[in-house]
Structures are given as C-alpha cells and as structure tokens.
C-alpha cells in the first residue's frame, strides 16, 4: 500500500490524504446513523455498547489482574464486532456502479478500517485507564497492546467485503486463505490482549511485536486483495 497517485483524465489524485480520511469519517458517521434504522444496525450498536460497558465495569471491579485480563479481550471483541456490523451494510452493486477504481475503493475501506481502529483503541484505552496501572505501564499497554489489537480487530471491516468474503463463480476460492489470515490476525490480538501486565518480560514483548507484524501484514494482504482483484460484479 502506498499513497498512490491515480491519473484520472488530466488530473492526478492521491488515495490517502487527510481530506479523504476526514471525508471517509463523515461517510462512516452518516452510514452508521442510517444503519440505526435497521434491526441489524440496532443489534450492532447494542453489541458495541454492551462490550464497552462490560469491559469498563469489569476493569473497575475485577479484584485480580488475571480476572480483568480474561474479560478485556472478549469485551473488546464484542465492541469491535458490533462496530463493524453497525458500519458495514454495504451494497456491493452500487460500489461497482460508482465511478471509482478498485484502488480507490480499497483505499476507502482502509480508511474506514482506520476509523474503526481509532474507536476500538479508544474503548481499550478507557478500559486500561480503569485498571489502575501506573502511568508508564498504562502507556506501554496502550502502545504495545491497544494499538496492534485495535488494528487486528479493524481488519474485519476490510475482510467483510466481497470479493474477500466470497467469490463463487470464478473457481477461485478466495475466502479460505483470507479466512485463515483473519483468524491469525485476530488470534494474535487475542493472545496479546490476554496478557495485559504490570511487569513486562521477553514473552510479552515478543507477543506485542508479533501482533504488530501480523496485523500490518494482514491489513496489507486485504488491501492488495481488494485493490488488485480483477473481478466484475457479475463474477462475484
């Protein structure tokens, strides 16, 4: 993924700019608001709020760190899934009808995923803040656990869409590999968040570095899969 210039007639456009990122945020907001009119969107919001409330409540009331850890990931996962359900009611046909290239579309999805990662990071940070860490430990956990885990979970936003989700007619089973990449990505995030600690050792550092590596590779993999796939709507 790069900030690729797209030659569009006589003009040249960049796919990754602050303006586009902000526009995507606005689009996400409007779409989320729209999806609240559907029962699916309402369930998504309920799941998001439930995960957030349970996570913060357990972080505040859990007696031991072990108990807090076991709740943290599941609460975050519920929030992340709720968020993705809430904001991922795409109509694939329209995406093919709109005048945009596959790379532009992929870039848009990446930016949506980035917004979701920021929201999930906010949820995780709030939970960490309720866990009574020291300041140094708090920031270490945010940087080495909160950020990579939120990127890992936001990959759902990209993996949700066709052709990653499914491709029935070309004979290429794209979904299987993507499924395992997603499992690996979320799995390492799960492990990383399971070991929220107040004292760090080599094992914890290794997990966090692995989480960073895998979530970045998975995100790049999904981006490539959307941006360079040569499939038309009727072939999905």
């Amino acid at each position, binding site marked *: 993924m790069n900030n690729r210039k797209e030659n*569009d*007639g006589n003009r040249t456009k960049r796919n990754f700019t602050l303006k586009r990122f902000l*526009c995507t945020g606005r*689009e996400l907001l*409007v*779409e989320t*608001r*729209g*999806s609240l*009119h*559907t029962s699916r*969107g309402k369930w998504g919001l309920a799941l998001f709020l439930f995960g957030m409330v349970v996570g913060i409540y357990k972080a505040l009331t859990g007696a031991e760190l072990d108990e807090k850890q076991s709740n943290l990931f599941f609460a975050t996962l519920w929030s992340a899934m709720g968020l993705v359900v809430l904001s991922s*009611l*795409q*109509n694939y*046909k*329209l995406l*093919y*009808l*709109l*005048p*945009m*290239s596959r790379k532009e579309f992929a870039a848009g999805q990446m930016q949506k995923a980035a917004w979701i990662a920021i929201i999930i990071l906010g949820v995780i940070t709030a939970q960490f803040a309720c866990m009574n860490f020291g300041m140094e430990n708090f920031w270490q956990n945010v940087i080495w656990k909160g950020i990579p885990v939120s990127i890992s979970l936001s990959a759902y936003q990209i993996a949700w869409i066709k052709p990653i989700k499914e491709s029935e*007619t070309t004979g290429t089973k794209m979904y299987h590999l993507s499924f395992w990449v997603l499992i690996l990505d979320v799995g390492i995030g799960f492990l990383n968040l399971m070991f929220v600690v107040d004292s760090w050792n080599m094992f914890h550092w290794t997990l966090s570095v692995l989480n960073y590596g895998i979530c970045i590779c998975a995100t790049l993999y999904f981006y490539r899969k959307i941006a360079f796939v040569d499939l*038309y*709507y*009727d*072939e999905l």
Partner: protein
Amino acid sequence: MEPILQIENASTERGTVFWLRNVNLTLEPGIFMGVIGRNGAGKTTLFHMICGLSRISGGDLRLAGVSMRHEPKRCKREMGIIFDDDYFRLDLSVKHAGIIYGAYYDRYSQAVFLNYCRKFEVDIKQNLRKLSKGNYMKFQLAFALAHHPKLILMDEPEARLDPVFRREWMNLLYDVLDDTCSVLFATHLTEELEQYADAVTMLSKGQQVFSLTMLELEEQYKIVRGSKEELDALSERLLGRRRMEHYEEGLFREDGEGLQGKNSVSRPSLADLMYYLDGRD
C-alpha cells in the same frame, strides 16, 4: 457529432458461455433508444456490460469517445442509472444518499439534486426504504440529473408501476432531458416505446436482431395480411407467418412494394416484431 454510446462487436461471456455476442449499437446525442427482447434475451446483460458490472470480453464499448474497457471510471461518470432493483443503501435518507454518493462524481451538485427532489415532490428527509416505488425512481432520476450524465440507463424501471405513473414518468423524462443526454431504456412495454422511442434495438438469445430508428423500422418491416393462398404465394419472402381466424398474417423485411392492392400491408408493432423474429424456434 460524436455518438454518446458506441458499441462495436462487444461480447460478454462467463467461462465458455457467451451471454451476449457481437453487439453493435450507436446512440446519437438526444436520442431515446428502447431495448426489447424476451426474458433472457440479454437486455440486462447489455446494461451490465455498459455500466461496468460485466466484463467486456470482446470488441469495445465507448461512452462519449472514452473506452469502457480502458477507462471505466471516466465512463461511469457519464452515466445516470435507473434500475428496478434497489442498488442504493436503503437505510439512508434521500438527502444523505445524495451527499455520500454524489461525492464520487465530479460534476455532481447537491443543490441541483435537492432542486430536482423538490420539483419531483420527493421528501428529502425520508429514508429510501420508505419511498414509494414511483418516488424511488424519481429519486434515482434526480440523482442522475444532478451529476449531468450524457447517458441515462433505465433497465425495466417501470415494471411494477401503474399506467398513469408510467405516462407521467415518460413526460417527466421529456421535460428534464436536453439534447446532449441520451436514454437507453429496456422494457417489455412495447406500446410505450412506440410512443416515445426514437430508435429500437432488439436482442434475442444473447444476439442482436436489429438496431434501427423507428423510421428505418417502418421502412424495412411490413406486416401483410391476406388469404392462405395469397400468403403461400409470398412464402419465400416471409420472415414468419401465423394463421388467424379469417385470414393469415406474415412479416416481410422489405418495403412491401408490389403488395399494395393485393393484400393488406401495414406497419408492424414492436410486439409483432418480437413475435415473428423471436417468438418461435
């Protein structure tokens, strides 16, 4: 003047099966062209090919001189799409749908869109899901007009509409479209096409039967009626015939010269053409 749409030997296939083969079609600016054919003839596939939902496996398709195969994004900007199925996200309000999707078009104006919505009496605060079928079509037309397309594609949008609205809809189209915008309209309602269309393309089993102006159709095809003996005498020149209660009827692809006086010769309706050219094996 450059044609709005030019399709040259275009085909689309899936695997080894051709869905549409060697279509040739030219649409001049300001022309209203109907596309007719039986179910499964390839009308929707043709529309999918034009708007980039299907791959063009052979030939080329140019929209305002720009190749769809090589520059699909530029081509899509020149199209307004009015389909029967719900391809917009229905949980958005009319106003928000305009804001979100209009951002993808360079020439889109939200003010123009809202003006058309007001003109067509579409409530901009209403969710798309809650719009009536007719208002949903008007919304699609308002959105299309707001980005100033050169071609409007309508794939059987009127199928579930009452006859009064259909007539109002066609009048509305005539009111708002200018000479720089052409319309390609797939429909089974051939009587309405006869009233409104400037040209017609007919498809059958994935192949093009003809693509002619209404005047050319009138000149090239004739319906002849007469006794069985009279039609037997003409049988080599007939494209198809059928027996009625008191006479027989056949379709000619000629000017009908030499038939006047002997037989009753008339202009075929589009339904007649579909029946004789595609009605039977």
